[in-house]
């Protein structure tokens, strides 16, 4: 509620996008959740739980920036660690953020899941490309994991009739996305030293 298009967050609050669209997005998100979560193996669950807890908690840390505030989302890291399995995790994290902190919206949770899930899944896809340069891939994954949801959100705002303001704000999001990209690089480097196998896709 009340979250205005202008805060550097990729959470859409309730009442901003039409309820019909939100409900449609919820239905689509349920389908996506089923597709991404089916045949999940018990060994994957702990990782999903911890990534979910991180996603839930990290967006509550706000940093002032450029007159508004930003927060980290760890979407890129979530996509790298979980691949498409990030969708149900993201959904749960967003649901609890909306219910407990009114961060994002309850009705719009499906839309938010699809927006951010697109970024996170894209990040995982980029990470798994067999292109040399892991640092570059990690940065790009973290960067696009923010920029893609921001772009989708801008398009949704534009289609709803809020004008192009949100799309113009993409430059602001690029700053946030760069921070996120650097953080993803740091985290990936750390994991490569500590536990490299966690960066490999789960055997399914």
């Amino acid at each position: 509620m009340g979250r205005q298009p202008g805060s550097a967050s990729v959470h859409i609050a309730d009442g901003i996008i039409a309820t019909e669209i939100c409900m449609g997005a919820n239905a689509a998100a349920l389908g996506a959740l089923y597709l991404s979560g089916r045949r999940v193996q018990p060994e994957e669950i702990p990782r999903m739980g911890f990534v979910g807890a991180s996603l839930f908690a990290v967006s509550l840390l706000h940093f002032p920036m450029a007159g508004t505030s930003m927060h980290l989302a760890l979407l890129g890291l979530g996509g790298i660690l979980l691949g498409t399995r990030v969708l149900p995790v993201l959904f749960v994290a967003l649901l609890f953020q909306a219910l407990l902190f009114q961060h994002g919206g309850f009705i719009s949770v499906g839309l938010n899941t699809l927006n951010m899930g697109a970024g996170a899944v894209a990040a995982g896809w980029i990470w798994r490309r067999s292109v040399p340069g892991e640092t570059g891939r990690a940065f790009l994954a973290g960067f696009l994991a923010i920029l893609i949801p921001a772009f989708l959100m801008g398009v949704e705002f534009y289609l709803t009739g809020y004008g192009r303001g949100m799309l113009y704000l993409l430059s602001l999001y690029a700053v946030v996305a760069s921070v996120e990209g650097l953080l993803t690089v740091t985290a990936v480097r750390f994991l490569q030293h500590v536990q490299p196998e966690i960066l490999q896709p789960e055997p399914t």
Partner: protein
Amino acid sequence: MKTPALLRTMAPLGAVLLLTSLGPHGLSARDLPTAAGPPPPSPPAESTLVLPSGAASPVHGITVRLTLEGRVVVATCSYDGGTPVAGATVTWFAPGLDAPYQTGATDPAGLSAFVPGGPGEWRAVVDDGMGHRREARIQVSGPPWGGNAGGSAEASAPPQEGDHGDHVHDEPGGAEHPAAHTEHAGTAEQGEPVEGPANASGSAAHTHSLEPGGSDRPWKLATGLGLIFGLTGFAYGFTARRERA
């Protein structure tokens, strides 16, 4: 792998937290601090913010404006969009008393008038019966409290989901005649700079002013994490059972 045992112990914790938070007030961790200790005092400054850009707020609240005209206090009640609040119950409270002094109702123009019985700070609680509720106060000076000098106070309800009417936040502001109630002008000055207009478009204003339980963040965070880990335990048990089957 040691995690399964750990997760199995987490599952009951998650279940307990889930049941606790699904109380009569909905999924909210606001009740948890009271169970564990005294709730943190909520500073009034946090709840007294009126977002300057009300248009961005999708949920509308009530604005109550009290003006002293002669000996009569007039309550002008409107929704945030400007629509008058018609047919709402207006309950007047005498200074320092919790029992209702007199009740009235607003007319189609959103107006209700009342003659205070003496000096002091009178309160009006406006309730439209549809989940919108707002309290406003006005300082009535000593006799003769009317005269030419009027007083005014304004209240605007931030949108509150789920707990309509339970937490009425007061916004004494909009002081047009500071002489009539300097005390309230002072309160407004103290209250507003906390989240100034420049900041109100950001998320800081969102999280601190519009959430009634904003000071419960650590508890909510713990609840959310407990729920997530509890769900993880459930999911683990579910998938493991399916594997065995």
